[in-house]
């Protein structure tokens, strides 16, 4: 038998089992060395977040749409979609609600699914909105302090305390 790539006799008979079907190769020593060496160095890229993000944003979005999307910000933590896109990390739990539309196709690319089927919290969880509200209040208080609007800051501090008390009563067993 001749080598599949040249006239030399095929001395290497390789059966590749990594694909869905076994594939047979009959190669001379030179071509077998090349083949084995190439497959050793071949990188099969696993889906990285950056890759998936880049791919998703290239599809079906004009520059204008992308610019508009980038400006979209979470009302709770203030992170913009642009910041998420660049840092690869979300700002708070509410981002999964406010960027839901954008995140869903991303989750499908990463996980092949978009619905959790695993463990559920033991105790009846409070409404996520109630809990993340604290993030917004603390952020607004910090802004008020930065502006030196101490009256506003003090009002917000009282509301934060109330919310924290409510959490302690409702959340912790």
């Amino acid at each position, binding site marked *: 038998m001749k080598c599949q790539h040249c006239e030399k006799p095929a001395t290497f008979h390789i059966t590749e089992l990594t694909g869905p079907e076994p594939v047979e190769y009959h190669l001379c020593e030179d071509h077998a060395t090349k083949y084995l060496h190439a497959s050793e160095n071949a990188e099969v890229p696993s889906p990285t977040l950056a890759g998936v993000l880049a791919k998703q944003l290239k599809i079906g979005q004009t520059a204008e749409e992308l610019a508009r999307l980038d400006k979209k910000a979470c009302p709770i933590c203030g992170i913009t979609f642009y910041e998420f896109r660049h840092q690869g990390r979300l700002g708070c739990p509410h981002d999964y609600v406010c960027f839901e539309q954008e995140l869903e196709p991303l989750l499908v690319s*990463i996980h092949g*699914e978009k*619905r959790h089927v695993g463990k559920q919290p033991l*105790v009846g969880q409070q409404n996520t909105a109630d809990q*993340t509200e604290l993030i917004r209040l603390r952020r607004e208080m910090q802004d008020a302090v930065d502006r030196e609007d101490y009256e506003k800051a003090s009002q917000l501090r009282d509301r934060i305390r109330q919310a924290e008390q409510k959490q302690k009563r409702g959340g*912790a*067993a």
Partner: protein
Amino acid sequence: MAGIRVEGFEEENVILDELVRRAPEWLRGVGPESDIVVSTRVRLARNLAEFPFIRRCNEADRTAIEKTVRDRIREIAAWTDLLYLDLISLSPIDRQFLVERQLISREIADATGARAVAIEPQETFSVMINEEDHLRIQVMHSGLDLNAAWAQINGIDDLLEERLNFAFHERFGYLTACPTNVGTGLRVSVMLHLPALVITHQIEKVFRGLQKISLAVRGLYGEGSQAMGDFYQISNQITLGRSESQLLEEVGDVVPAIIDYERKAREFLLKESPKDLHDRVSRASGILRTAQTISSEETMLLLSSVRMGVNLGLLKDLPIATINQLFIHTQPGHLQKLCSSELDTSERNVERARYLQEHLRNDSEPPRT
């Protein structure tokens, strides 16, 4: 911020000095298939609903998260003997030591701001606070032990969930800073020692096969690290849309096949080139016993051959637990803690050679535990 004192201990230093001399449970070299499967690790990512994710936190948020979690952990009656370490107050060597011990990640070691770790004294679990997520819970067992490791971490998660409001979304599950962890927040990893697959150049082939079924392969020290000493971690990449038991099964299902490949590669080497194999193992053992100065990389490489030699019965006078421990006791952080002084690279290489000689003497006992 002052270091958090742990009841019953004077100083964090005392705790760490004691810890360094002990053997972690997961390195004992026991459990099913422990000649090839070194350890099983599972981790859960959890976040408190009432705080931003870590990257978006200011220092006040980080401090508040750390305090909230610390206070709740202290309420847990079964956890009174937990070691709670404030990572800000630890020296770089101590943090390096905890990374080598796999009790904390490189990321949390190098971060700034309020952050901590709670460690179970036998080192079967640790809880990192303010890593990429507010909580990273991990359980480590010796050998291939997926179901027991899951049962333990699930119980730990329940204890914490009774006391903390974890961010949860009815469709997306447990919410995480990075969308790659959302859903179960579960990463299942099995650490394998695969020297024969490396020698026979089969390892890349195995990995390509794994990547096709969405499993990731990493070196010994996690994210982005090179495989040191022929240790490889195999873990799931998908966390959403599959139950925890499915994810455990997916990792568990491929491990026996890889063990089988490694055993076949070892048999092949024993059959086809027994002299070469014996020579490699004997030389490795010889260098480790006689070197006067040796780098960490060379040590890992040679210990890997020795470990395989012991498992194949080519070296008879060494317990596997000794070899397992030498892999981490010869790392820079451990070495400096064991000799209680700061050493530069060349001093470490000399100390490492001395330490190896002492523990590889034919009549040696396993490193003191």
